[in-house]
């Protein structure tokens, strides 16, 4: 009974992530790629994403705090982050990166700072949500359950 509930809440939670736009269908792509031969694929990728993104955000903060901002350095970072977030389906991070890049293009320091905050916010949101998601999954697995196949029923 508890397991069913946990599965249900996982499903609901996942669904809410999609509804809020935190994740998009690309995340489903990742889940599709996960199979018996590679059972931890999603969490591996996401973990890599976290590591990568932590580093990028750190670099970005440093770059933008410089007296003279070198946009040639900033932009590739944002591009990188955009590519990564796009690949795992962290839609809101990706969208924030899109805006971020337009400000980079315009060399708008002020706008970049705002965008960095936005990106960070979105990033911590998705990180938080995904960590919760993985926790739920782990709990289910620990309880001997099966992670339900995701369906996009909304």
């Amino acid at each position, binding site marked *: 009974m508890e397991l069913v509930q946990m599965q249900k809440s996982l499903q609901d939670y996942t669904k809410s992530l*999609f*509804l*809020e*736009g935190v994740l*998009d*269908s*690309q995340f*489903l*792509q*990742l889940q*599709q*790629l996960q*199979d018996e031969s*590679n059972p931890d*694929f999603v969490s*591996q*990728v996401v973990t*890599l*994403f976290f590591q*990568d993104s932590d580093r990028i955000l750190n670099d970005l903060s440093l770059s933008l705090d410089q007296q003279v901002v070198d946009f040639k350095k900033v932009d*590739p970072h944002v*591009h*990188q982050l*955009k*590519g*990564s977030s*796009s*690949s*795992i*389906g962290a*839609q*809101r991070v990706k*969208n*924030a990166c*899109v*805006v971020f*890049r*337009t*400000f980079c293009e*315009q060399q*708008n320091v002020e*706008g970049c700072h705002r965008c960095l905050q936005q990106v960070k916010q979105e990033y911590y949101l998705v990180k938080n949500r995904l960590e919760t998601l993985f926790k739920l999954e782990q709990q289910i697995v620990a309880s001997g359950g099966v992670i339900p*196949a995701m*369906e*996009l*029923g*909304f």
Partner: protein
Amino acid sequence: MVCEMETDHQIDEMDVEVLSSMWPEDVGGTEPDNQFNVEKPAGDSDTLKEVDIAEKRTMADLKRLPELMNTTDQGSSQLTNLVKQWEYMQDHAVRLLREELKILTKQREEAEAKELKIIEEHNFETEEPENVPVLDESSDLFRRFKEKKSDALVGRKRIEVDEEFDTVAYWKQKALSLEKMLEASTERERRLIEKLNESLKTMESHSAPVEELTQNLKRAEGFLHFILQNAPIVMGHQDKDLRYLFIYNKFPTLREHDILGKTDVEIFHGGGVKESEDFKREVLEKGKASKREITFETDLFGSKTFLIYVEPVYNKAGEKIGINYMGMEVTDQVRKREKMAKLREDNAVRKAMESELTKTIHITEETMRAKQMLATMSHEIRSPLSGVVGMAEILSTTKLDKEQRQLLNVMISSGDLVLQLINDILDLSKVESGVMKLEATKFRPREVVKHVLQTAAASLKKDLTLEGNIADEVPILVVGDVLRIRQILTNLISNAIKFTHQGKVGIKLKVIPEPSFASDNTLNADAQEQNGMAETSVWIRCDVYDTGIGIPENALPCLFKKYMQASADHARKYGGTGLGLAICKQLVELMGGQLTVTSQVNLGSTFTFILPYKVATANDHSDDQEEFSDMVDHQPEPDDTTEGYFQFKPLLGSIYSNGGPVISNNFLPHKVMLNSPVKLINGFVDNTGQSEAVQVENGDYMDEARHETRSGHCPEYENGNGPCPSKESESCSSSQASSEMESELTVSSPREDVKTEPEVRETIKQPNILLVEDNKINIMVAKSMMKQLGYTFDIANNGVEAITAINGSSYDLVLMDVCMPVLDGLKATRLIRAYEESGTWDAAVEAGVDTKKLENKQLHVRSTNRLPIIAMTANTLAESSEECYANGMDSFISKPVTLQKLKECLQKYLH
């Protein structure tokens, strides 16, 4: 004085131009005259006689001139003058002589008086010589007389008497001396009388006036000669038939018989002669002296201007008998004057031009400033606006209720409209400032037309038929700036659709002969030559026609003007920026063509543009069939390249017909693509072998739709995680089809794709694939996907690594990220294509790619087959599909890469 003047003239003629003789100095055949024609006056000329007179300068009809002198007032007055002068001189001489005579007479009288007195005295002496003391007074008187006499006769010797006074001896002596004096005086008187007589005699002999008159005349003439000798003056007298009787300072080569008795017209030929003759005649007729400036242009003395003075001459009876004329050569003065006038005129013109120019510059500067400001402002507005739209788009991905979403959609579409307007303005200022660069790429006109129509059909929500009609003679492959041409076509088509409510909208292409305006238009030749190819060029006329509301005739002129729409009503009703047509026109003209319009109210409009294109050779065509394909992921069907007719029915009617001979399907492309494409592909592969193309075409069609509506920031359409915030408000707000399609999506299960995997895997051998990607996460995801699809691949982290890898081994397919550090995908692809063409990596080496690695494998030359390179783009403006094609890529997958997209791509390029 004169001398001084002359030397002055010769020495310091600083400010005065050297006044050369009026006539040329070295006229041939002037010898006989010239020897007397002394040009310079003799040095010292205080007296007139010393002046060397050039008698020969004058020429006169000697028979008739005296007659003339006698018959005219002028002539007789001169003679009278001379006679008077002579008479006066004679009078003078007579007076002088008379005066002298008078003096002499007086002297004689005195002498006689004296004699008388002496006699009286003598008598008195003899009568009472003793009575001297009594006669003291008388002796006083005598003394007084003596004194008086000595006063009167100046220079007379005093009579010296040695004897003692008042003695007899004294008186005797005195009488003797007085007698002597008297004698002398008488003698003098006689001499004087003699002299007088003599003088009177000579006077008589001198009395003939001829010699004197001749002298005087000579003097007068000499004086005239002296003055006129070097003056640039010619003068003369002509009778009433205007025949010369007298001329002074005639042209040196002319002889007496050349001039005398002849008229000007008979002597000279050329310009001005007739005029002067007429002028003289006029003066003669009017009887009034007058002056005129006449420019002669004769063979004899060239071009000379004379100021001519002509006066009529009357005889004593008051009848006209001829004219006197005097001409002064003023050629230099006239020239100077004309030069001055011209200078003044030039000056005025220059000043006027200057002020005009200043005005123009001012206006231009103003305009430039205004344009610059517009561009700057546009740019300034665009930046924050893209922030607003971007954020709004992010907002649209969040959880919103229906009402909020609607509001947001309106917000986004409005924002997009403003963005488009600003982009249009920037486009316009780019064209106007000449920054806009044209590119020459090969493209297939048929595909472009088809594509534009497909795109238009996608957002069509009216019951309109879209058709394309391309004449057979239109080349399959031409060279031009396909981007701009598409922009023009899209603009015109969307305009046509906007103003058409029923009927059809279409594009017609046909080849026309070179229009007249182009033959002298070098610009278009340049535009064509940019390509550096020697193909023949072709003019293609493109008609975009509709059956819409039409344009009233009075609105036609301002149709292509900026910010103008046919009427304010239209602007309100139909919206739009009013810049579209202006941009189209400018683009067409930039490419060396012409955009025109014909229209009838309520019947429709036809926009026609004609453009020159280069015809790509057939060879290129077969080689690069893929490279320049305008279609995304599109493998042309055999018939497609030459197909000349397309028709698209609106999606609302759920009829999508491609006029192609093989395919005629009735289905909604949206559904096909989003629902279960793989299944469909397989189904069609079995049946026709063509469906892949159809499917891909549809997918491409979606991409294009997105691209055309500038939804660069648009979240992936296929996701279906929310309504697509498309730029076109209508497609967002009310497209039932799209919401339908979204609901379809929920049914589709990704698992379906997976099920088909084994089939795919079986049919394909292990190909060599290279993934060029710098993002670890992307690599990881792609790797996993590839694994699922049953492929393995090598990884390169940037362009340089990719080139190294390609050099090292043979690949069947390259998946290339566009934006990478070190060497980006576009450049890498260009270098790879250069390698394929030349067989060497020279271009890459030049670009700075590590040469050592490449050299080692230099001999490992690939087969001539073209390596398929698929771009992986983030679908931003900077990574547009067009740019990918332009750099030699074959196709592209938009990021993020999905299993499905990857599979389609691999299937297409790996068999």
